């Protein structure tokens, strides 16, 4: 299991760093709730809006 952990952990670190370096990163970290019209932690709209 240790070997699996080493492989998975290193793959995850490379994936995180790779994604960060290859994707835009504008301003502070946000949650979907920060966007206008969000009614839930995932950014879903409010029922009344529909």
């Amino acid at each position, binding site marked *: *299991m240790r070997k699996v952990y080493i492989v998975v952990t290193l793959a995850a670190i490379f994936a995180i760093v790779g*994604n960060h370096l290859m*994707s*835009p990163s504008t301003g502070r970290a*946000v949650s979907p709730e920060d966007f206008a019209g*969000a009614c*839930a932690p*995932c950014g879903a709209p409010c029922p009344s809006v529909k």
Partner: protein
Amino acid sequence: MSTATISAPSVVAPRADYLFVSIAVLATAILVALVLLDGQPASAALVLGGFGLGVAFLKAEFSYAASWRRFLTRGEAGGLIGGLIVIAIAALAVVPVASLWPGYGGAIAPLGPSLIIGAFVFGVGMQLGNGCGSGTLYTVGGGSGRMLITLAFFIIGSVLGSLSLPSFLALGGVDPVLAANYLGPWGGLAATLASLVVAAVILAFVAKKRGANFMPSRNYIIGGIVIGLLCIGVFFAGGHPWSVTFGYTVWGAKIFQSLGFDFSNAAFWQWPGPKHALEQSVLSDTSSLTDFGMIFGAMAAAAATKRFANTPWPPIGSLLAAAVGGILMGWGARLGFGCNIGAFVGGVASGSLHGWVWFAMALAGSIVGIRLRPLFGMSRE
């Protein structure tokens, strides 16, 4: 002349697993450095807050899934009441600050079929997966191979949930009900704390009636206080209460996208928040930052005291339950607007009614999940 060899009783001192301690600390340092290079100290605080949460959860052995199971099978309410301590402490900051300070908000969610179905399914999955959202993170970090399976399927399930959520929301619902909107910030806080006291009294009453203990253990009291304070720290750094599972959804969607899947026609991924998260760096998402920190914090804490991940793989039935539980939790978390942390802890600590609805439905789902455990060769307790 005879000689006798007297061997001293062997005392095995806990020995750190320096390889994994180094990996965990180095990985955390890399993430902190990356976000600081972008000029984002709040993001660094979220990673470090997650790291602290990972250590605290692991050291206190704070488990929502197990404490709910102990309550349902034996009537013991100590773990559940310990979980309420976390919420009470977090609420002291979240309810007033979210109402009074611009830039801060609570964890709110609409009430309707999506919440009810999602929370129930999450409860079933939580008992099969053997951990909730936070439990999965810290046990993965703690070296459990079984929970790696749970996490992998949790991620897949949450992507499936993101595709299902819009059609479940179309079934209807009611806008979020927030105590502070009706009673003001301090009245809302008083109502939130009162609801927690009522819940604790009910749980203690049920435990007493069943002849079981209802006092939280010392670990749960200390752990609950530390975790509650860390929740406040994460709230101030991120602007919203701590959440876990949206990060899983983003990771899954990014992985599927890299494999060629197209989310441009999926309604969920066209909402501004999820769309932004999918386009941006994974380190631009607040829940991912605390999730990564929590995994590496638990890894450092676990490896600091013993050889890391040194247990054999569990039986195939248990691995199958991990997969099924993970899928159900992931799907349920998206429909139910989060897990024990984002929906229950964050929701109730924000004075949002959906937190208590989530709790009731997930507890009902847990009853079903516990009954299903023997099918996978797992004990009901």
